[in-house]
């Protein structure tokens, strides 16, 4: 670059005396043509202005992202009357835990949380494993109809779950046509084969690599396994490993970080899902469903009737407290495992 040019002293004075930085700079400027000077001046100005501009932009945008969270926290701890007090913006005047406590009870948070966590982690574990196996199959083996089948994987990413929700509901309700037969044998057997409201509605598709966003996960794993060097497996084959053992002992250890990333995302997707679960569950058995129907739950809890409407302005308090309760586990997970969320995606082959 122009700046790094060695300074040649034309009259010898400079070398002996040791000029100040300013003089050096002046000299350097003299030896440049106008274009170079203009370039330097622009660059200098940019170097000064840009960090400030960057800070303003980032601060503003971070505020937009964090705004709902700040608001949630602010709402969850304030008393009802603060909502009608125009002087209260962010910091509540009457600090109280009552709202949070009521929401906690309305959501039956302890039990719901454990149930959701168990379901999510279970489904995610199963699904990550099956999706990895499928992805590996697509990445490393050549067989007839592979392109067509992979086309179906892409379809699974594209097709919104809303399209197939009702036929799926029928499959679970009648257990692929088995339920009416069982009903004839005995009513209790019949009701056992009605899978609606059973966690099986989540586990069964996950077990067959068809759960929530399974298509995307298969795609990610396929990309990842394609990126690993082929020599790994060839070495294993030469040592007499079968394909499945090669997969488990050679490929899986290499894919550990991408397994973790996909698993984390899967937990998040299951945690956030309310569409699929509201199709298959009639009770509010997960956090997301609880939150979605929090209005009714609250009305039942506070007034012993499902039809009473809270004043919307005050209702916000409970809604925001509910949001906070639903988001906190995710936030905790994100804070500690942030590295795997961000770095993992980069490495796990969604890119490239």
């Amino acid at each position: 670059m122009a700046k790094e040019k060695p300074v040649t002293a034309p009259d010898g004075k400079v070398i002996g005396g040791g000029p100040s930085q300013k003089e050096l700079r002046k000299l350097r400027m003299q030896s440049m043509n106008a274009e170079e000077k203009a370039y330097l001046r622009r660059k200098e100005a940019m170097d000064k202005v840009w960090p400030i501009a960057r800070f303003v932009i980032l601060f503003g945008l971070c505020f937009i992202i964090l705004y709902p969270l700040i608001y949630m926290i602010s709402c969850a701890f304030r008393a009802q009357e603060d909502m009608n007090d125009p002087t209260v913006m962010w910091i509540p005047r009457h600090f109280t835990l009552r709202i949070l406590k009521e929401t906690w009870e309305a959501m039956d948070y302890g039990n719901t949380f454990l149930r959701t966590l168990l379901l999510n982690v279970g489904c995610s574990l199963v699904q990550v494993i099956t999706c990895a196996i499928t992805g590996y199959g697509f990445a490393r083996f050549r067989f007839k109809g592979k392109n067509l089948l992979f086309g179906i994987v892409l379809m699974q990413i594209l097709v919104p779950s809303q399209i197939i929700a009702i036929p799926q509901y029928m499959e679970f309700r009648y257990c692929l046509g088995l339920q009416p037969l069982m009903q004839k044998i005995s009513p209790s057997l019949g009701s056992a084969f009605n899978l609606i409201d059973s966690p099986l509605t989540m586990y069964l598709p996950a077990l067959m690599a068809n759960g929530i966003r399974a298509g995307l996960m298969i795609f990610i794993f396929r990309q990842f396994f394609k990126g690993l060097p082929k020599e790994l497996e060839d070495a294993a084959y030469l040592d007499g490993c079968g394909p499945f053992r090669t997969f488990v002992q050679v490929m899986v250890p290499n894919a550990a970080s991408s397994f973790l990333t996909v698993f984390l995302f899967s937990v998040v997707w299951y945690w956030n899902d309310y569409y699929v679960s509201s199709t298959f569950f009639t009770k509010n058995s997960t956090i997301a469903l609880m939150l979605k129907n929090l209005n009714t739950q609250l009305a039942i809890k506070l007034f012993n009737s499902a039809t009473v409407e809270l004043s919307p302005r005050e209702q916000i308090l409970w809604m925001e407290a509910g949001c906070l309760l639903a988001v906190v586990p995710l936030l905790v997970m994100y804070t500690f495992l942030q590295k795997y969320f961000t770095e993992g995606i980069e490495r796990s082959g969604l890119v490239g």
Partner: protein
Amino acid sequence: MSETEVKDVQTEPAAPAKSKKAKKEKRMVKMPYERRKALYGYGFIALWLVGTVIWFLYPLFNSLMYSFMDVTPEVGGPQGEWVGLKNYAYVFGGDQYYSRYLASVLWETTWKTPLILIFSLFIAVILNQKFKGRTFARAVFFLPVIIATGPVYNIINGDISRTGASSAGQFSTMFSTDLMGELFQFLGIYGLSDHMQTYVETISNNIFGIVWNAGIQILIFLAALQNIPVSAKEAAQMEGATAWEYFWKITLPYVSPMILACLIFTVIDSFTAPDNLVMGRVLSMQSDWQYGYAAAMAWVYFAIVLAAVGLITWIMNHFIYYEVD
């Protein structure tokens, strides 16, 4: 593993042919191994294949059938009567909401997608620079990724009208009102002019949607930026490229393959979001037990999405710079 397989594998890497005869011989030895490998391939995807037939293809086929039928829910499963294209005719002619919603969703996706892409590329470039607090900024920008897919997003987006409290929306988190004003108040600046206010308001309303839907895209672009070879960077520096020139001549060509990925991701994301209007219409038809109409609506919509994604891929493939081959 048997000895024969080991032998087969050993012959495989020597694929480049030396003479025709040798090649022929090799293929003869290779065939059984290849076939066995293919069988293993089926083995690996078998579980998925069975699941897909049960949980994906069969329901998909069913819903396609529903769209040509008059469906009535009955004990033992819905009963249908074949009515041909009647449902589709109704979707376009009879339903007063569908066409309007469809147009508005398409229009919104059209203008929002480029904005999201430009925004996320811009942010990715910024987050790729070195400055204090970068880790924190990155963490904040990816935060929407873990929140925005859930019901929480609907609530903070002021969308609790679905549950009946329609007026709650305008109070809820005030996104629909004046976010920029909030920011200025938060910073202690009051009394901007009204004109300025409305102008900033329209932008800020959309900024929320854009920022909250750009998490994954920022991540993808950031990864792409980090893959730009150092040599390209150095060459640009030697030539005295300004940041502006550097962006257009180096950054953009290198991330262009990722632009396609992000574009498709954004389009699919906005089309399949459960809170978009067309999906909402489909769902409300379903809850009215109008399965036939709902299925027809969903299929029309899906066909449009598929066509859009295909078209984008086709167009973009003409503009992408691939470094290799």
